[in-house]
């Protein structure tokens, strides 16, 4: 079977899988509502959640925009730091030895605790939320970038050296293309992670955003809105993942030749 045929078949299977998932969720949900016998205040039926989505659409969208802005801003900062550090590590290996213990320390302190400390110290402004998002999404980006930059074929680097290529030329033509598959793969984890990070950051004292809505809905026993927010957050994460896949598809279009 040709690559294009198997590729098309794979894409079709993926589409079917997503369609099955989206159809299954309300069915399983309805069955759970019917079988559990829980009151709609605790386990609302899909119709009630749909009502919330329609009636509170503008409010939900406002808070979604807030969360998405924090997630994207934090994610951009995480990318800049990860790219800067990975390039620094490749060109000055000693700097990796120096920075790594700090990375291990920051990585292993529970980020929920770090978020609380940041809010106590810096307040609940945009900066704090962005830092939380950076903490969640930055490590997979850095780890994959370092691995990718080090995966550059040595014979290609030697060819460049013999051609007296500058460091920038070696980076642009050999190191970066070698790191790209790793970098793209990291986005699948880190981009969705940045949305979760933004929501968690909003849990703490925020007055807007999906995280704030989750806390408010819990306090007010609004399970219907809680489910609506969960649905939106899940759709955002799925959209982020699919966006990464689409980007990957475009970046590596030459592989399908």
């Amino acid at each position, binding site marked *: 079977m040709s690559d294009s045929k198997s590729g098309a078949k794979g894409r079709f299977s993926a589409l079917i899988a997503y369609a099955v998932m989206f159809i299954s969720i309300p069915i399983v949900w309805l069955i759970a509502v019917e079988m559990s016998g829980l009151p709609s205040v605790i386990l609302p039926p899909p119709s009630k959640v749909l009502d919330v989505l329609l009636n509170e659409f503008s409010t939900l969208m406002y808070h979604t925009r807030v969360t998405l802005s924090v997630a994207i801003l934090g994610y951009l900062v995480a990318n800049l730091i990860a790219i800067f550090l990975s390039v620094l590590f490749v060109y000055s290996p000693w700097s990796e030895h120096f920075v790594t213990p700090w990375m291990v320390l920051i990585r292993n302190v529970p980020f929920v605790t770090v978020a609380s400390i940041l809010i106590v110290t810096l307040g609940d402004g945009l900066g704090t939320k962005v830092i939380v998002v950076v903490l969640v999404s930055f490590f997979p980006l850095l780890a994959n970038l370092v691995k990718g930059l080090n995966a550059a*074929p040595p*014979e*290609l680097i*030697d*060819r*460049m*050296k*013999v*051609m*007296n*290529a500058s460091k920038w*030329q070696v980076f642009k*033509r*050999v190191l970066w*293309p070698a790191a790209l598959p790793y970098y793209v793969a990291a986005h699948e984890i880190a981009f969705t992670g940045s949305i979760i990070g933004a929501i968690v950051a909003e849990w703490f004292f925020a007055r807007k955003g999906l995280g704030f809505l989750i806390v408010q809905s819990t306090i007010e026993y609004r399970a219907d809105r809680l489910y609506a927010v969960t649905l939106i957050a899940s759709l955002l994460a799925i959209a982020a993942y699919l966006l990464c896949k689409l980007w990957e598809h475009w970046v*590596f279009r*030459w*592989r399908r*030749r």
Partner: protein
Amino acid sequence: MIDALGVDSLCKSFGEELVLKDIQLSIRKGEFVSIIGPSGCGKTTLLRILGGLETVSSGAIQIDGASIEEALAGQEIGVAFQRPALIPSLTALENVQTTLDLCLRKSRLTPEGILRDFGLGDSLNHYPHQLSGGMQQRVNIGCAMVHQPRLLLLDEPFGALDEMTRATMCRWLDAILQETKQTTILVTHSIEEAVTLSDRVVVLAARPGRIAEILEINLVRPRLSWGDNAFLSEMRRVRAALESVAVKGARADE
């Protein structure tokens, strides 16, 4: 007349271990020299030193009267390794073009022209993963030659290919180099390759790597012919030199 390459009393050590000892070699312009020897005799190290990828511990190297550093700065060297050094996301044409993009010197060769000469006219826009091993190696050598370097270094370029492709590639390279008169050094394990392509074969002995013998190959080109007694006789001569080196090495080990 200045030699295309002059190596004078070259020694190379890695830490305490002497890897190459007192290498003396001069190569004329347009000459094809093969370096052959047992595993670990320092063939690749010598080639890497000539390509500026390793430094010497002592001794001197001149390429057309210039030092290695000057030759590198002038982009006078081309190199092709056993594993093709191709950028996977670029087509064959773009890979060869990359050499010229990096190169400050003028070349009368064009990427398209060289690939057509190499028999890859139908694969110009193919990516490396769409090419066979032999075709990838042709593109690889194209990348190393398109800027017309004064010195072409080949490190077992056909080592990973099957026997028949190897023989085809040997004939192809012989024809190309006869036409271009490119000064070339080839590191190889294959006696057949060395005899088919070389004007001279340098036999290295191991531990430390040193020149044991330099053999002139006086055969008319094109050479590769198993029915030709003169060809077989040259093969036997190189083999005998290699065996002698191996026997001496084994005695030294005892």
